[in-house]
């Protein structure tokens, strides 16, 4: 009996909170599955202008709902992905794009990681080369050389005697 009550409670809790992770559940009728896929891809990579870190599909804010509707209408009207992005870009600026355009202001963003990786490679290469050099014993200095010769002469005379 107790178990039944617990199950009922769990079920109710699931019903109440289970939808929280699906903010965007608007239903738009698309003619083809491809259009629907394009719509989903677009709202996943477009950013909610009101929120700092949510895409259109993940946001509950009214502006996101409006923009999802705009995107859906444009997809249904047969507009291309690039056209839709341009449309929103012209109104909301680069903020709306989660995938930043390649332009001078974003060069660091796009090419920085590759550059850092190259730098790291150079650094590691230099380190390895240096260690190899250190593994070869250093040549003797003239004084050391002289001392060695003296000693080996002395040893040679001793062994003769």
């Amino acid at each position, binding site marked *: 009996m107790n178990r039944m009550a617990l199950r009922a409670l769990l079920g109710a809790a699931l019903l109440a909170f289970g939808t929280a992770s699906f903010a965007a559940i608007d239903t738009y009728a698309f003619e083809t599955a491809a259009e629907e896929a394009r719509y989903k891809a677009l709202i996943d990579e477009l950013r909610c*202008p*009101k929120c*700092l870190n949510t895409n259109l599909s993940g946001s509950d804010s*009214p*502006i996101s709902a*409006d*923009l999802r509707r*705009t995107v859906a209408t444009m997809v249904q009207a047969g507009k291309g992905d690039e056209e839709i992005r341009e449309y929103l*870009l*012209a*109104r*909301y*600026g*680069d*903020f709306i794009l989660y995938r930043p355009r390649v332009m001078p202001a974003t060069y660091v963003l796009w090419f920085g990681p590759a550059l850092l990786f190259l730098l790291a490679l150079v650094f590691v290469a230099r380190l390895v080369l240096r260690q190899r050099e250190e593994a070869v014993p250093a040549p003797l200095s003239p004084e050391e050389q002289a001392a060695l010769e003296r000693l080996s002469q002395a040893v040679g005379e001793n062994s003769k005697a």
Partner: protein
Amino acid sequence: MSRTSLFLPLGLFLLMAFMLWRGFALNDPHELPSALLNQPLPDFQKTRLADGAPVARQDLLGAPFLLNVWATWCPTCKAEHAELNRIAARYAVPLVGVNYKDDGPAARAWLARYGDPYRLSVVDEDGSLGIELGVYGAPETFIVDGNGIIRYKRVGAVDRRVWEAEIRPVLRNLGLALEEPPA
């Protein structure tokens, strides 16, 4: 290790300090650079809040004006309303409202209660004009010049400081006299 490479950590530190300094100097990450600056005011066909008469972009042009996006559901709009009333009463600059995603009767009652600073309010019930304007949070205020080009955009409340430091100079540059009325 050569002597100069000893300065590498110092260089890294300075680089990081510079980037953090720049990063934290962005005072408000919510503030989006406006994409519409120096772009023409978008075309629209809407109705007037007061009487439902049609109003289009063409009807607004001719002289510089302030375009203010507002709604009764927006608390900040209420906060800036007194300042808008003051501006409308004291200065010779027309204000045009965009009643954004609002309920018509509620909006009219609101203006009757708190005063109406607007020459007219455009009804944008579905928010489509808002999207054309790149609105993402009411209130937003635009300055549109006589040729219909957007010269300034502000997201958030207009208060005395914003009026004096930002809006008024732009309007002056557009040739509005904006004389202080005689006390």
